[in-house]
């Protein structure tokens, strides 16, 4: 299938909301039929003796205003495994209604009660997603630089991922939204924005219907089980310099690069393998077709081995385990904590580039000095 055909299919899927034949009493709808007397909505004003204005019937708007099917909502709940947690379809309907839909609904159905939107749920869910993602990434990768941690959180629970997850769950036919253009007071609402609000709202719905532990389990199942490439997010302007400063901050011997293996030095395709050592300990290894390239890669490898050290999944402890596992919000839930949590010992953090503004920074770092002073004190006592 070519690009144009794929695009047509995805556009058609986006426009075709789940208008179920069982929900429609009369088809085609009266508004679609020709003649001003046939239309009963507010598109035409009071009938006048002069030839009436032509009525415009928009099929997309009509489809968007149809009520969603209970069967579609119920199957959606079962598909994402929330059948026991979220028992009513009204909650899911609220979670799938973007606030941009409300003005459209009010305009076409002025007498009916306004449906609930997912604005508050999405905001609460966004905070919960940020909480769970940050604690998980920090606990799994304790030495990750701060900016990389923030980028990883965006990759796990950011707007693009939320939109993808909503599509993969099958929420596209359930979404009720309205495309709104950019205004001076409010940014545009696009399909991806509306779709992204659904998983956030679902997280908040799980928290409200059950507990924080249940919401955390939901987030771990759908968001944090996905693959994120952290290696590509860690970039170095000068890895040799960064490694030198990092090693100095941790109070180790300065790094020395040594040529480990080489082949084809004067040929068209040389290969050099360089290792970087701090004293007798090898920090990293890199290959390249020139000595400089191999040294660059070795420095990068050493830094990546430090930053990407990973806690094994069975040893990961999360601070939100201290909340109780009982039903209810965090203030009212009763019961024992989900699990235990002992915070990791703090060591020196990452080296900051261009930190000329920070005076009084001493090398090695403060925590490394504290540890070495304690060790020296113990040696003196002995």
């Amino acid at each position, binding site marked *: 299938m070519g690009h144009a055909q794929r695009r047509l299919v995805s556009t058609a899927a986006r426009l075709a909301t789940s208008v179920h034949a069982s929900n429609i009493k009369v088809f085609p709808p009266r508004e679609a039929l020709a003649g001003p007397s046939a239309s009963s909505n507010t598109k035409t004003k009071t009938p006048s003796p002069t030839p009436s204005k032509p009525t415009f019937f928009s099929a997309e708007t009509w489809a968007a205003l149809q009520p969603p099917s209970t069967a579609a909502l119920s199957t959606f709940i079962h598909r994402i495994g929330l059948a026991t947690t979220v028992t009513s379809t009204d909650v899911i309907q609220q979670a799938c209604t973007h606030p941009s839909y409300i003005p459209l609904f009010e305009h076409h159905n002025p007498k009916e009660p306004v449906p609930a939107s997912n604005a508050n749920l999405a905001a609460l869910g966004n905070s919960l997603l940020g909480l769970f993602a940050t604690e998980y990434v920090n606990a799994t990768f304790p030495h990750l630089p701060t900016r990389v941690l923030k*980028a990883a959180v965006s*990759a796990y629970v950011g707007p*693009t991922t939320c939109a993808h997850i909503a599509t993969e*769950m099958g929420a596209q036919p359930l979404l009720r939204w309205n495309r709104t253009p950019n205004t001076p007071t409010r940014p545009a609402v696009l399909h991806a924005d509306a779709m992204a609000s659904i998983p956030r709202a679902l997280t908040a719905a799980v928290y409200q219907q059950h507990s924080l532990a249940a919401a955390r389990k939901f987030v771990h199942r759908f968001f944090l089980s996905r693959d994120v490439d952290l290696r590509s997010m860690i970039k170095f302007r*000068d890895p040799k310099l960064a490694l030198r400063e990092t090693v100095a901050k941790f109070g180790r011997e300065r790094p020395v690069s040594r040529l480990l293996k080489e082949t084809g030095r004067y040929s068209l395709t040389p290969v050099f393998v360089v290792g970087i050592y701090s004293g007798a300990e090898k920090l990293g290894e890199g290959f390249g077709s020139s000595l400089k390239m191999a040294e660059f890669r070795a420095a990068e490898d050493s830094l990546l081995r430090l930053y990407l050290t990973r806690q094994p999944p069975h040893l990961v402890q999360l601070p939100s385990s201290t909340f109780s596992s009982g039903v209810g919000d965090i203030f009212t839930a009763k019961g024992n904590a989900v699990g235990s949590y002992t915070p990791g010992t703090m060591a020196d953090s990452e080296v900051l580039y261009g930190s000329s503004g920070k005076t009084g920074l001493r090398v090695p770092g403060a925590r490394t000095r504290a540890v070495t002073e304690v060790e020296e004190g113990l040696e003196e006592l002995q």
Partner: protein
Amino acid sequence: MASATKAATRPLLRASLSSSPANGHVAFIPQVRKVVIEYCDSWASSANTRTFVHNHLENVARANPHVEFVVKQRTHKEPIARGFYLNNRDKVVPLHGFEVNGIANKIQLILDSSGAKIKPLKRRTVESTTESARGIWSGLHVDEPFKI
């Protein structure tokens, strides 16, 4: 020497960062969302389908609460079953010529499918998102360096 104005590394735009799907690693989202069974009320070719719908369809629907089951009229035509999937594709399976258990097997085939196009698997080599467990062989990292 890079100029001061140009960044040495390309910046990451955080709003565009995303993760790759891993359906089944922890949670599994079934890919079929709706099954539509269309049959004729009068023709004999739909007789077994009618029997299936009257006797067994409710049990199948109860066993698969994540799937919508729709029964539709298809007058004076052969019976079919349509499956709709989350990748916006559909699968149409003819049901004439089968016994009731054959029809049950075809419905189960629709329920088990992912909706993806059928690809020949014989010629495909290993496809994986993770790197190899033992690493790629290097002639320089063995006891005796490999000489061509």
